[in-house]
């Protein structure tokens, strides 16, 4: 049996996203990244990206990325059952992109997402914004803009539930596999 508890409530998440938006704007200015386009990773990343997209008032529509076809565990678990088509309404060539995800743990999702992006074109830069950065990194990938940070241990899973209301759940997996 797995047990779930709420780690962050909706209000805390919404305010963290507000903070992320401010830091994102400052970072883009500091780096001189003008006219950025935003892309969310399915599914939780899109929920965060929708809010950031509104807060930043970006003129172009939000892109959606499904990384199922780029996962590195295909030979172990086969095709992912629920694939949504990726939808990139903007051309990525020479653009400054903001990539948004809900939880950064191993880094494998972001690795796959970068591969997807580069199959659409050659962006000028990619900035990574993540709601929760946690322990468990297996690849040299770091977020540029972060909502929460936490250390949980391998048996704890952090999952975003949404799209409304957004709640972060912490689930303890029993040791048995």
């Amino acid at each position, binding site marked *: 049996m797995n047990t779930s508890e709420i780690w962050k409530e909706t209000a805390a998440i919404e305010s963290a996203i507000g903070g992320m938006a401010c830091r994102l704007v400052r970072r883009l200015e500091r780096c001189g990244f003008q006219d950025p386009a935003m892309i969310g990773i399915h599914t939780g990343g899109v929920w965060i990206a929708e809010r950031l997209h509104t807060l930043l008032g970006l003129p172009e529509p939000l892109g959606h990325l499904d990384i199922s*076809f780029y996962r590195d565990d295909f030979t*172990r678990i*086969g095709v992912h059952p629920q694939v949504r088509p990726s939808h990139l309404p903007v051309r990525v060539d020479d653009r400054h992109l903001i990539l948004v995800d809900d939880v950064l743990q191993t880094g494998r999702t972001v690795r796959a997402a970068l591969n997807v992006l580069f199959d659409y074109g050659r962006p000028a830069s990619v900035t990574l914004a993540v709601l929760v950065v946690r322990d468990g990194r297996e690849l040299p990938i770091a977020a540029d803009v972060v909502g929460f940070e936490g250390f949980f241990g391998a048996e704890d899973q952090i999952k975003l539930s949404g799209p409304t209301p957004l709640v972060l759940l912490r689930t303890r997996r029993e040791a048995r596999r």
Partner: protein
Amino acid sequence: MGSSLPNPQLDAQGRLRHFLTIEGLSRDLLIELLDQAEGFLGVAQQAVKKVPLCRGKVVANLFFETSTRTRTTFELAAKRLSADVLNLNISTSATAKGESLLDTLRNLEAMHVDMFVVRHAAGGAAHFMAAHAAPHVSIINAGDGRHAHPTQALLDMFTIRRHKGDFSRLRVAIVGDILHSRVARSQMLALKTLGVPDIRVIAPRTLLPAKVEEAFGVKAYHELAEGIRDVDVIIMLRLQRERYRGALLPSEHEYFQLFGLTEGRMGAAKPDVIVMHPGPINRGVEMDSAVADGAHSVILEQVTNGIAVRMAVIAMCLGNQRRADEL
């Protein structure tokens, strides 16, 4: 057909390992394949029209019968999944089909091929290969005799779903040489499995299999105008000239007069009817050029959809292979 036998296409967990026929596949599995194909459709929009899913896998196209469309779309599908593709065009030899087929299989298995896409003039060829294939190898049926052409049927279902959405209220007519058509058999099974309530087959009596109504749960018509009344989908079949001579049909001209689809005759169907054809079209035999190229025709879309659907089938079978060994 015995229902007590395990389905040769599925592994012990009920997952797709080979794709040989629509028969015996559940509605859920067909829907899962259609949903997967929906995702693969977007790959053609990328600048790099490829995903790395099946990188390092080897797919061999083993065509004992000629084909352009099916072979090239299978090849493209495998390549868009980043698999390596071998194309082997083997002309049918009359000698010892079983033996030579098995030898071909053994030799290619020794080259570490992961999947065979097989087309053969003999019904059951793909099943035969699946029965003898090594545990790490998948077989896809790309058409066997008059028996089955399941990926064609699946891409047709995909095309119908993209236009009509829900299968449960549709009237679908299949027109033409049902008797010799593996496509028609697979389509009838797929339409039935997906819950289409009104499936019609329209053909001269000489081109309908005996007891088609009982065997497939369809309604047979011998007049085009009556058969296509109020249908949502018309599927035209190719007149397979190479499979018979003279006896079954007086002439192609007469066939067109009675069963050829023209814009005028299409008026009996629903105003938003879609017209499909698995290709290649005999213009002026099965249908008028005006229909083939007209606003209701989705024939070229079928070709595009065929790649995405075949990607879904290849990816699902290859993805299930490793899992099968681990258990």
